[in-house]
């Protein structure tokens, strides 16, 4: 009996290990003003083998903790004291100014596109913007966290959907086929070609073809770097929003 349990435990451990392995040892600072949620997050991440080095309840504490502990990733809530508006975004921008290589994942109670734009304005490498409830889908959340930690991007599907709705009237986006639009949305979320192929259940070759076609239709020069793709997409959509 005892032996059995140990066995299962080890199995499960290895199982989780494969996932956590990609993140293991990542040093994290969490800033979230809601104490219960802050503890919940820390608990979840620690259970996954991540190293939560400090937690903070307001932007000042967060910046101090980032300076002191030099984490790999900072997870910041958008609405924090004192005004509960965009403190998290301001803190994220400031933290990046102090340490450009710091990966920042911003969690928000709702999608506010201007926040996304402000956050991603200075480049999208190592940045994420997710709705809070995505944390509950642990596997996907860890995946996004890993992407951000390794210099990639994680944009919430909601944000991308909003960007699309706002720019739909533009004729250049109208040129895209529905399939190409799906691919573009996943690109904007920060997924790589393999992941896009998996999500859409097509071959990587097909994805490649779609992406080339998208770049051609949107008059963008193709490149292989993930974050530059997203940057291009976002900048393009943002331009449309400004003009429209």
């Amino acid at each position, binding site marked *: 009996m005892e032996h059995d349990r140990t066995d299962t435990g080890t199995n499960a451990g290895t199982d989780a290990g494969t996932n956590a392995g990609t993140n293991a040892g990542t040093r994290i600072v969490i800033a979230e003003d809601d104490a219960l949620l802050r503890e919940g997050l820390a608990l979840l991440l620690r*259970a996954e083998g991540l190293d939560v080095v400090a937690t903070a309840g307001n932007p000042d504490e967060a910046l101090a903790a980032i300076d002191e502990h030099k984490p790999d990733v900072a997870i910041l809530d958008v609405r924090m004291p004192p005004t*509960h508006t965009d403190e998290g975004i301001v803190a994220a921008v400031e933290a990046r100014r102090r340490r450009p290589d710091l990966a920042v994942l911003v969690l928000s109670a709702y999608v506010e596109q201007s926040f996304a734009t402000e956050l991603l304005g200075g480049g999208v490498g190592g940045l994420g913007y997710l709705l809070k409830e995505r944390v509950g889908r642990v596997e996907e959340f860890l995946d996004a966290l890993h992407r951000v930690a390794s210099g990639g991007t994680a944009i919430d599907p909601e944000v991308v959907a909003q960007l699309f709705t706002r720019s739909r009237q533009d004729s250049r986006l109208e040129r895209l086929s529905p399939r190409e639009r799906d691919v573009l949305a996943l690109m904007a979320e920060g997924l790589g070609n393999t992941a896009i192929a998996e999500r859409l259940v097509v071959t990587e070759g097909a994805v490649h073809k779609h992406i080339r076609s998208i770049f051609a239709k949107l008059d963008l020069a193709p490149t292989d770097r993930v974050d530059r793709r997203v940057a291009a997409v976002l900048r393009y959509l943002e331009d449309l929003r400004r003009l429209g």
Partner: protein
Amino acid sequence: MAGPSEAADATTTGADWRSGLTDTVVRSLSAARAATGELASGLGTALPALLLLLWLAVTAVTSVVGVGLLMAPAPLRTLHSLAARERARLGRRGPEVVAPEPPPTRLRPALVDPTTRRELRWLVRHATLGLALGLLGVLLPLVAVRDTLFPLYWKFMPGNMTATSVGYGNAHSWPDALAVAMLGLGWVFIVLGLGPGMARLQARPGRQLLAAGPETDLSLRIVELTATRAAALDAHATELRRIERSLHDGTQNRIVSVTVLLGAARRMVARDPAGADALLERAQSAAEQALAELRTVSRSILPPVLADRGLAGALSGLAANCAVPCRIDVDVPARCAASVEATAYFVVAEALTNIAKHSGAEHATVTAYSRGGRLVLCVEDDGRGGADEDGGSGLTGIRDRIAAHDGTLSLTSPTGGPTTLKVELPCGA
């Protein structure tokens, strides 16, 4: 079977008839009381109107020889301010009388100004007919009381003081006294029957002549209404922001915690069932907290008790549930805007909670009344005082709500007591 039921019907009809009669009596008594009040208040502008009319006449006569021309602006200014007073008076007792644009004060344009001319026509009627009606309105009820009660006191009066109210003959015997009483009853019926009509007649010249005519430009009035409406919308927006914030930062965070804990528990369930169960336990309590907060938020939007029982009923309920004995006195005849009543309710709820928790008081008093379109709340206790708004009491949130409604809050609480919290809110209805 038919018999008893018919009898029962007859009894009901009788009761209906009686209650119908009581209703009619109560209604006409209160109508007569209102009419008498109105006629008496009309006297308040009719007497100055008579004096002003004489003044104007003197001015006009002396103008012929030139002296009056120099004095003319003063009575004209008085005319305008008296007309304004009459508009305000009529507005308090009925539909608003919208003022026309301020008339010119210089003599020459004033003489051809339509507003001034209409005010002059009103002045003549109000100083004569209005004054007469006002005097009648005050004297008739007095005479009615005097005559109706005549049999009770005529014996004690000296002979020459027993003159009848119609000024004809003296009462010397019981039949005479009873006749006077009958006369008094007649007066009572006249007051009841004609009072409201007289009040309407007295108000009519003012309503017709002092209101802005169709030719008047109402743009000033529109500007004023636009400003108050903007203020109301502003209060509304602040209130919405408060609700949005409590939903996003409170309830939503609780539910996010639930999903985070559930996600963590699912990951742990195979690895460590006991740990997963502990997480599920926490998730459940977070969900319960979310429910409790949701209840608080929806109650904070509009407490159900206000809709069911009105402000007076809701405040009495608060007082009854207060741990400290609480006397309550609510005199708010008309209903205020729902959000104002809700704010008033929370002010009192918070104040009573603070009194029960911190003051050590033995008695508390809550008074609420409305005056001049404002709702005034006063909560007092005989406790130890020294209450402090920053001392963790819920007063800060209350103050925000009051500010959103453009109201005021003042707290006086010297050490040793007593503590008085006074709040004023525009009724906004």
